[in-house]
Structures are given as structure tokens and as C-alpha cells.
């Protein structure tokens, strides 16, 4: 291999080690990542990205494995990004999703990448969307993005996926909880997994009713699909539901839909990095502490800071250089 060849060039040649390294660069905030992704950007946008989210243990990984297996029989290649939580105390993580995807390891049409959330609170890792971009550029036709096990308030997947699949299962709270959770609102497809277990019928009925009562004005009718990933049942139905949603989005205008999501991605990314720069090495904490010691109120300090920052932003670019 040519030592000076860029990662982007190697990825265009189908080099999986380069693909893996580029995802690491995204994860580590490596300054070289941006130029490589720029070089690949014309190739990004061909894949369909399905986000798979839901509470811990609902069967997301098992379902992703099954979806990948059946997609392969349909002639598609599959890229998978699976996020597990980092410990807030040590920063370490045990990335266990891919244990459920064991039988896909040696399939050259599948690529699986585990990611730790690294302090992101929205159910994904900060680099998850970038990893999907790289897999997309590499040429995978379907991308499956598994979030960490989520509660009632982690929705980053909404901006990273074309279709959001919410996986629920019987025994983990009743229909009322499902209605309360905003999870229901981000779903394009609802899957009741573990439908081999008691209580599945009831959950399906509750969800079907909830969806019909709440989302009557929406153009897309969210389907409720029964599946049992553990016993390979209903997998085709889930894929068909994703395909139907895709057809709907494409009919409504794919470019506009994706642009809306991209705007949100940029907004998140900028807000996060801005906060890091401000509160990281700049010594703002010390300044605020000193102001507090002088008797200023937190409210007044915050207002003055915001004023200062927006004034800086409003200056023309030349003046700042």
C-alpha cells in the first residue's frame, strides 16, 4: 500500500482498514478527518440510514443482526454502527452490542463498528453520524445505527437517521408509559419485539391505538410491527415497513428532509464544540468563580457573558483575524 495515499483514496478502493481508521479519526476529533470526508462527500447520500432505538434490553442488537441477515439475502450490503454507554465515572466502556451480531463477522458485505457514547447524552456518540457518512461513502446500501438503551429523553437518532425504528418489548412498562415517552413521537416504525413473550398482544393493541389517536394529522401513518428477533420472526415485516417509509419520504422530497436533519446536526455539533472551547482551556471557570467571589449573581454573570460572546460573533470575520 502506498504510504502517502489518503484514507479517502483507500476507501474509494474498498480498503476496510482505511474505513475503520477514518471512523477512529471521527471519534477522536482528529483534525485530518474534515479534509478526508470532504474528499468523499460526493459519494455520501446513497445509503438508507435506519436508526434503531428503544429501552435497554429491548432487543435492538438482536434485531439489527436479523435485519442485516435478511438485507443480505435481499442483495444489500450493510454497515452497522452500534453505540453503548461510556461510564460517566471512569470514561471506560464495555461495548457488548456486537456479541449479538456474531454470525455477521466474516461476511464481507457487512461492517460492524462499536462506539462508546463518550459523554454524549442524546443516545448516540458524537461521531455516530460521521461514521454513517463514511460507511455511506464506502458504498454500503443500508446503514443500521443502534443507539444506547434510551429512557424518555434521548432523541439524537432523529437527526442521524432517515427512518427511526423504535423497538419496545412486553414486560418493560405498559402502553401508558409508551405514550408518555417522547420515543413514540420520534418513531417512523414501531416494533414490538419479543412477541414470543406474554403481554405482546396487549402492547401491540395499546400502541396501535395510541398511534391512531395521537398522530391522525400526520401524512405518515406509523406502523406497529410485531417481531421476535430471538426466533427470527417478523423481520421481513420490519424491513418492509422501513422500505414503505423510505418510499413515503422520497415521494415527499428526500433532499429537503435530509437537509432539515443536517441543519440540526450542524447546530448540535457547533453548540457542543462551542461549549467545550469556552469551558475547556479558556479559563472561564476561574473568571466566573472570581466574579462570584466579588458578589455578582449567577444570573448577571451569565447575561454579561452571553452579551460578550454574541458581540464577538457579530464582528465581521476579517476583524477577528
Amino acid at each position, binding site marked *: *500500500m502506498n504510504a502517502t495515499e489518503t484514507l479517502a483514496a483507500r476507501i474509494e478502493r474498498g480498503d*476496510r*482498514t482505511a474505513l*475503520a*481508521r477514518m*471512523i*477512529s479519526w471521527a*471519534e*477522536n*476529533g*482528529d*483534525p485530518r478527518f474534515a479534509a478526508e470526508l470532504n474528499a468523499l462527500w460526493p459519494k455520501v447520500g446513497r445509503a438508507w440510514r435506519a436508526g434503531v432505538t428503544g429501552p435497554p434490553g429491548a432487543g435492538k442488537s438482536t434485531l439489527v443482526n436479523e435485519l442485516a441477515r435478511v438485507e443480505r439475502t435481499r442483495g444489500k450490503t450493510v454497515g452497522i454502527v452500534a453505540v453503548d454507554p*461510556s*461510564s460517566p465515572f*471512569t*470514561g*471506560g*466502556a*464495555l*461495548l*457488548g452490542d*456486537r*456479541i449479538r451480531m*456474531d454470525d455477521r*463477522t*466474516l461476511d464481507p458485505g457487512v*461492517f*460492524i*463498528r*462499536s462506539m*462508546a457514547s*463518550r459523554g454524549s447524552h442524546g443516545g448516540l456518540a458524537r461521531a455516530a453520524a460521521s461514521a454513517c457518512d463514511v460507511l455511506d461513502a464506502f458504498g454500503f446500501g443500508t446503514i443500521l445505527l443502534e443507539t444506547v438503551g434510551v429512557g424518555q429523553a434521548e432523541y439524537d437518532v432523529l437527526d442521524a437517521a432517515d427512518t427511526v425504528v423504535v423497538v419496545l418489548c412486553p414486560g418493560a412498562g405498559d402502553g401508558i408509559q409508551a405514550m408518555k415517552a417522547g420515543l413514540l413521537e420520534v418513531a417512523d416504525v414501531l416494533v414490538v419485539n419479543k412477541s414470543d413473550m406474554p403481554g405482546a398482544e396487549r402492547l401491540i393493541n395499546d400502541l396501535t391505538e395510541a398511534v391512531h389517536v395521537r398522530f391522525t394529522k400526520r401524512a405518515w401513518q406509523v406502523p406497529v410491527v410485531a417481531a421476535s428477533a430471538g426466533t427470527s420472526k417478523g423481520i421481513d415485516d420490519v424491513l418492509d415497513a422501513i422500505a414503505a417509509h423510505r418510499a413515503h419520504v422520497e415521494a415527499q422530497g428526500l433532499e429537503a428532509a435530509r437537509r432539515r436533519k443536517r441543519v440540526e446536526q450542524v447546530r448540535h455539533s457547533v453548540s457542543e464544540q462551542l461549549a467545550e472551547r469556552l469551558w*475547556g*482551556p479558556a479559563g472561564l471557570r476561574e473568571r466566573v468563580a472570581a466574579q462570584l467571589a466579588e458578589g455578582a449573581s449567577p444570573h448577571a454573570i451569565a447575561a454579561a457573558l452571553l452579551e460578550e460572546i454574541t458581540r464577538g460573533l457579530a464582528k465581521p470575520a476579517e476583524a477577528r483575524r
Partner: protein
Amino acid sequence: MQMTTKKIRVLVGKPGLDGHDRGAKTVASALRDHGMEVIYTGLHQTPEAIAEIAAQEDVDVVGLSILSGAHMALFPRVRAELVKRGMAHVLLTGGGIIPMEDMAALESQGYAKLFGPGTRTEEIAVWIQGEMEKRWKAEGAQ
């Protein structure tokens, strides 16, 4: 400044038919508790599968665990599969029931260091951190 998020990524693998997984799981959890991102393969992996996972995950460290006596057959095969995938640079380590002379032999075949029964997991974690610090420092100096 941007490198603050870089983490040591480790694959803990169980090649072959050996069913002893207590040690592998203990080491995996200990490394996580020392701030590393750890992928555990589960039991009964082929050398090809372990190397393929290491490549897809772009790990910095591959650690193998064997208590069945098959280490002299399996450890070199895992290394060969890693090399085949352009992963010759990973830090190779492992442990289990491995006689001293076998440890010495494997350590002359690309395995940086192997650990036997009774090793404190703290010692393993600190050793990996030290090795990775050295490597990252050398890369940064280039």
C-alpha cells in the same frame, strides 16, 4: 487540543474451543474500569473472526485468553490473520494457563507480554496504559 477524546480501545478475544471465560471477563471489566473501551468477542472465536473484529473496530490492543493449552497453535494464527488485515501495529497481549517457556516463545513472536494466573488486573491495566502512552508519544513526535 482536539485529542482529548482519544481512548485506548481493546479487544479481548477467546479463540478456540476453550470454555473458561472467567479470566477474560474479569480482565475486560478491569480494563473498562481503568477508562478503556473494551470489546469482548464472546467464546469460541476463530483466529479469522478475532482479527476481522480487531480490524473493523480499529483497536489499539488485542488481548487473548486461553486456559485450554491450545495457545501455541492459536496465538500465532491470530497474529498472522491480523498482519493479513494490515493490523500488525496492534499491541498484542494475553493470558491464561501458559507455561513460562511458551510465554517466552510467544513473546519472541510478536506478543509484547503475557500474564499468568494470579496476576492483579491493576498490573495489566497499568502496563497497557504505559505501552500505549509510549506509542502515542512516539507517533506524536514523528
